[in-house]
């Protein structure tokens, strides 16, 4: 019988330190071994919390296993093992360590049972995410890493302030409980989690970091970054009505950008935002079926977007960019990668037979209420939008060729194997989803392959595809061009940064002028004071002054004596 009660995430953190010193041949093995060992620790334990340790008067619970965090943990650790296969294709010990550290932080955050440990573990995962971006060989990655650190700093600050207010408001402890968004503490924690899940206005870090990370880094960020936020929302804010419009906005913004951008890795990141938005909205709905659907949906999203980013990463490794406008001849140069890309693109759009369909149909069922019909329509339409963005557009672009000779230049075998294994998970979960339904906290008997559910999804995707191809044939759909789309970050990196810089210059000048004025006034006051002091040093210079002072002092003494007598 296993007596080890270690948080599974700590295994990955320890492995990250080991990987820093391990030779190339041992790194992938260490990564896979850590994932397996952590998975074994997780599956061998029964549900329940470890006894709290008192630290500075606060309870610290390092391990708390229940049905909610188990499903997230299993997904995270299986994806980590898949990364180990993909990681064998290149040499970068720092990135390997960063990925293990991020996985360790994220898994630790899932399994701790108190707020302070959660903040520490989530912050560790955030810092490791920035480390992953810094490890990227791509141009501009350093700046993207700095921007991510700014977001992480803001998120960590909000979390800490939230926990501090939560404690000062008279909460008995920091052990997990539902939080109230109306309190200052709950509001701060909610705001921090909005950054983590990539809610509108804070969503730019997701596409910014994924698009600038290395092939493996992009896949790791897709799998581990927003997942912790969704878990925390399900833990702390289930059935919070505000989450419904926020999730809906994430779906809409993500789908719009995914269908428009030229950089397909950024497009896939926006697709992840769309699916994360589905989860956020479902947590806001809050019924047991909706919360179960949200958990299942983030589970399948992790696999699907990991697989998609791996396939796109293989293109990046060979071509240096993953732009649809530069996809000409891709299907001939990289046929296996192109096939994997299309399979994973179909999976990301919720096509029947793939992982995301299994949970997408549960999500539709959970939101099928009259007062939520707009959300239902948005979730259903997101499938059509992602089908066009991540499957149809890449397929059409990759099979375009200019007539010249194309050199066969397939991705390294390890990359293909890793992406293939990830795609296999997408297909296997999609074809046999009952074990996933068995993992959900709510007992779920759901038949996604009933004709009532299958036929409408085929109908939706088919109609969307026909509409897009016809619009494209009529030259009504936008052509693939090498353009970047401005997002909200262009606002704060452009006009806001310019205004701040201008305000800084003005403030410096005002400060300088104020300093000069104070110096001038001080000099004049000092000169006057010095003159007065000099005059005090020689009080009897004038002849008449001495007599005047003598008589004045005498008069004062007489007045005091008379006053004393009276």
């Amino acid at each position: 019988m296993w007596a080890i009660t270690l948080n599974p995430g700590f295994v990955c953190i320890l492995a990250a330190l080991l990987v820093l010193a391990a030779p190339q041949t041992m790194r992938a093995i260490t990564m896979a071994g850590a994932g397996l060992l952590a998975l074994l620790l997780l599956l061998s334990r029964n549900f329940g919390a470890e006894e709290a340790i008192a630290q500075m008067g606060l309870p610290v619970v390092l391990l708390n296993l229940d049905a909610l965090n188990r499903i997230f943990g299993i997904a995270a650790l299986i994806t980590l093992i898949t990364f180990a296969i993909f990681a064998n294709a290149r040499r970068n010990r720092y990135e390997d360590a960063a990925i293990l550290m991020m996985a360790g932080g994220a898994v630790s955050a899932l399994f701790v049972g108190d707020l302070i440990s959660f903040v520490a573990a989530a912050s560790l995962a955030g810092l490791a995410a920035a480390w992953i971006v810094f490890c990227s060989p791509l141009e501009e990655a350093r700046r993207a890493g700095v921007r991510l650190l700014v977001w992480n700093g803001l998120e960590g600050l909000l979390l800490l302030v939230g926990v501090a207010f939560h404690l000062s408001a008279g909460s008995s402890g920091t052990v997990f409980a539902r939080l109230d968004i109306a309190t200052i503490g709950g509001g701060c924690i909610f705001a921090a989690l909005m950054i983590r899940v990539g809610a509108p206005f804070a969503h730019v870090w997701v596409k910014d970091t994924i698009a600038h990370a290395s092939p493996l880094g992009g896949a790791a960020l897709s799998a581990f970054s927003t997942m912790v936020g969704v878990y925390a929302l399900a833990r702390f804010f289930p059935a919070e009505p505000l989450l419904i419009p926020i999730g809906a906005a994430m779906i809409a913004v993500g789908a719009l950008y995914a269908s428009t951008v030229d950089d397909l890795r950024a497009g896939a990141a926006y697709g992840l935002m769309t699916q994360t938005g589905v989860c956020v909205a479902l947590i806001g709905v809050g019924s047991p079926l909706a919360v179960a659907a949200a958990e299942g949906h983030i589970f399948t999203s992790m696999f699907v977007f990991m697989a998609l980013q791996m396939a796109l990463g293989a293109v990046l490794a060979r071509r240096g960019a993953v732009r649809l406008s530069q996809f000409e001849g891709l299907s001939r140069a990289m046929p296996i990668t192109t096939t994997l890309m299309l399979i994973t693109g179909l999976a990301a759009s919720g096509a029947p037979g793939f992982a995301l369909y299994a949970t997408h149909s549960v999500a539709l069922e959970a939101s099928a209420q009259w007062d939520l019909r707009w959300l239902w329509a948005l979730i259903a339409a997101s499938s059509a939008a992602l089908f066009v963005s991540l499957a149809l557009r890449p397929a059409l672009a990759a099979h375009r060729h200019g007539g010249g000779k194309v050199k066969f230049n397939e991705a390294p075998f390890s990359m293909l194997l890793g992406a293939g294994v990830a795609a296999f998970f997408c297909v296997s979960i999609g074809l046999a989803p009952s074990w996933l339904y068995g993992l959900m906290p709510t007992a779920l008997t759901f038949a996604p392959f009933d004709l009532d559910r299958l036929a409408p999804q085929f109908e939706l995707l088919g109609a969307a595809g026909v509409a897009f191809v016809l619009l494209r044939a009529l030259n009504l759909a936008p052509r693939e061009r090498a353009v970047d789309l401005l997002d909200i970050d262009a606002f704060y990196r452009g006009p806001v940064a310019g205004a701040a810089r201008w305000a800084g210059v003005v403030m410096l000048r005002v400060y300088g002028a104020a300093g000069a004025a104070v110096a001038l006034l001080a000099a004049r006051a000092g000169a006057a004071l010095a003159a007065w002091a000099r005059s005090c040093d020689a009080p009897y210079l004038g002849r008449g002054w001495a007599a005047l002072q003598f008589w004045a002092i005498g008069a004062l003494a007489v007045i005091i004596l008379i006053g004393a007598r009276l």
Partner: protein
Amino acid sequence: MTRKPLPSPRGGVAGLALLFCATAGGAGLAFDLLGDAPAGFWLLADPGGRAMLGAGAVTILVLIAHGARWLLARRAGEKGGRDVGDHP
């Protein structure tokens, strides 16, 4: 006399994609309309509603994409705005 080689076929994959989508959509629509599924809880959940939703969503998305490119596009790689990494 040498014959000039024919240009590579273009648009073949678009036709294939159209065929694939039309088949999937048509089969789905047929099963949806002819099946004994109960009426949905609102119009778009009724039989045939998803086809409307899919085609409508893509059309709206294409329109918005035109607008977004017109308003927000800039050439790839062009530096825009300042950055947290920039220092005066």
